[in-house]
């Protein structure tokens, strides 16, 4: 998987916000730093497919050399993680992950031959995913009963469960307390690299960018 931002420019009305020209390979993280209002979250929206007026984009956004500029958001395979975990409160932890699980098993090696997963297989996948990161006991809990750190972990698991092609991180650690923050950074980047996902990180914390160990683009204020 490769994410390529080919001469991408973002506009607010007709004013240019930023220009990006970059290639993010599998397992790499591209960090974008800049003050608020510099258009870095707008760039994520452009990649995710949720750019709204008055913003617009030129250039081409490619995943595996296929331009996705005109692909609807839900067909892009771009997972997003925000600073809030945004777990669905009408579902338990397990249901949140199961909801994200794609009907076809592109995720795990086992059972990939079958076109559609049975209910049992899906449940097994969910509990496997939770077990792998040692959070099995959370499976049937309402999401409101989780700590901030736990919610953040489940949010990432949920994003990964959908088997995205690209992951976007929008200041994902900014609301965590200092102790959790360090652990989460390490854990998130490990997970993303292990799956070989190209990742776009937007942040204004230089520590995030350091931990990501990838390219860094700093946006100047105009």
């Amino acid at each position, binding site marked *: 998987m490769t994410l390529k931002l080919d001469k991408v420019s973002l506009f607010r009305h007709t004013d240019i916000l930023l220009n990006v020209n970059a290639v993010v390979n599998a397992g790499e993280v591209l960090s974008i730093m800049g003050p608020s209002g510099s258009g870095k979250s707008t760039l994520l929206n452009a990649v995710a*497919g949720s*750019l709204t007026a008055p913003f617009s984009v030129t250039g081409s956004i490619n995943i595996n050399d296929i331009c996705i500029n005109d692909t609807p*958001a839900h067909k892009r395979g771009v997972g997003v993680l925000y600073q809030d975990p945004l777990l669905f*409160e009408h*579902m*338990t932890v397990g249901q949140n992950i199961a909801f994200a699980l*794609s009907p076809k098993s592109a995720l795990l090696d086992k059972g990939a031959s079958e076109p559609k997963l049975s209910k049992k297989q899906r449940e097994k996948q969910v509990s496997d995913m939770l077990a792998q990161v040692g959070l099995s006991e959370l499976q049937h809990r*309402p999401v409101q009963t989780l700590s901030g750190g736990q919610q953040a972990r489940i949010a990432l698991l949920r994003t990964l469960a959908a088997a995205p092609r690209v992951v*976007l991180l929008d200041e994902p650690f900014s609301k965590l307390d200092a102790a959790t923050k360090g652990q989460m950074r390490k854990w998130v980047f490990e997970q993303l690299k292990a799956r070989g996902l190209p990742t776009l990180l937007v942040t204004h914390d230089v520590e995030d960018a350091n931990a990501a160990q990838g390219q860094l683009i700093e946006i100047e204020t105009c």
Partner: protein
Amino acid sequence: MAVFQHITQSVRVLLIALLSVPVFAGLVGVVLPAFGYFPALNAFDFNLGVFKHLFALESIVNMTLLSLLTGLIATALSVASAFLLLSVFYRSSYLNRLQSWLSPLLVLPHAAAAIALLFVLSPSGLLASVVSNAVSVFSSGAENLSNTQNVLPPSWEFPYDRFGISIIVALALKELPFVFLIAVSVLSQPQVKRKFDGYFNSATALGYAPVTVFFKAIFPVVYSQVRLPLLAVLAYATANVEIPLLLGPNNPPTLAVAVVQWFNHVDLSMRFQASAAALLQVVVTLIAIGIWLIGENIIERVQGRFYTNGSRYTGQMFASFVAYSVVASYSLLALSIIISTTLWSVATFWTFPTLLPEGFTLLHWKTTLSALAEPVKNTVLLATFVSAFSVLIATLALEAEALNRQDNKRSEYFNRWVGGVLASTLFLPLLVPGVAFLYGLVWFQLTYFNDAVWLHLFISHLVYVLPYVFISLAVAYRKFEPRYIQVAYGMGKSPWQVFVHIKLPLLFAPLLVAFALGVAISFSQYLPTVLSTGGRIATVTTEAVAAASGSSVRLTAVYVLVQIFMPLVGFVLAWWLPTICFNPMGRYTLLRPRKSKL
């Protein structure tokens, strides 16, 4: 575009049609007879004879003025006191409590409110009894009065007074909660609230008193946002039928009541006069709106000086006085309404001025409930269908709006135009007097589908229920966290899947509230029910009005209580169901009793 997007876009257009077609068809249906064209009565030539006849009526000026002035004064009173109330409580912790206390009054049917006021304020009502007893207690020491039994009720002209003061009082009391809650809903929008907090902090730092800040900085912004609903209130007040019918003078009545009487006259040729009067009613409502707009204009010119005169405490005392009196009189009134209707509903023999009936019986409840079985069934069935349909249409239309906002490329101008038309169409059935378009609508319906009584009833309720359901739902729908949707799109979920699996469950509570509101609005409809069925289908409200103008006070009391009770059931369900459905947290706390923190 996927099928789902196509459907939502079409529903949006359908919503506009559902609201505007009945209103315009209805207007055509009264315009034609008003100008002398009425095929059913063999009248085919257009002329102004009907209007000549109408304006020749001796009482026409009186009726017109009565409608115009009661509507204007009542609306002005309710708007003024609602904003004074808000100016005192807008930053207080009592605001939420006021909101929840005033909400039930919003859904109390006009007919029930009018009947309840009769119980309390009429010369032989509870208030008069209390006053008379108090007087006799105070004077008994001096004169050793023992003949309290023979005291006559005072002869104040409360209901049915010539000048329509009782209409004004009832309308103002009924409309105040609506105006207040609409304004509160504007104030509680997150962005607006943040902005006003800023205004408040900077103005108080300059030494302005909270009430003065409200009128100098906040009121102008809020008012501009609630203008359209206020005009709808005004239009409604000038053309309301239930309240003047139950509390107003009879000879002459208000114009709207006269229209109803003429339309229902045994002499079918009265239909011409009724149609012309219905059009006159539209003009009266337009004049009222015109006067209101002129008033706004004058206030706008004067207020510039008021903002800049530098006074820090303007209105502080007055506003507090009005606000606390309003709260006190509402509490007193609500209490006495509940006490007197409950007592009447179980009273045996009860004469003025004793404070309690001589005995209690459940006979009235038995009689009424057995008579009410059929009307209750009709009412509930109709309200459920109308409200469920409205919630469906409103939700899909709002989803269309949300999808358009996500995708700004696609036919942007057309969508924005549809949005603009929709926003104003919502108020169309509320601005055009019901007496004007409902009769015309009935005429059309009878001409084309005479036997579909339920369909007529459905449509005439829908035009009133749908706008409220939409407005109520729109607040929650437009506030929905867009990142939830983005997260789900990131998982490859289509707009349809997001709508079904994410939006609907997370919006379950506001959906149910909108449904309950729709049910309550349908319950309260009097005129649409009477007209579109020609009396063939009875509902609780039509029976209550019939009872109030005829039979026993005791039975009427039961009707009023049933009317108060029914909408509340809906709201209790709307409050309770979300705690157990789509809520793992609710089940979690239910299953595991709270452990002590040890």
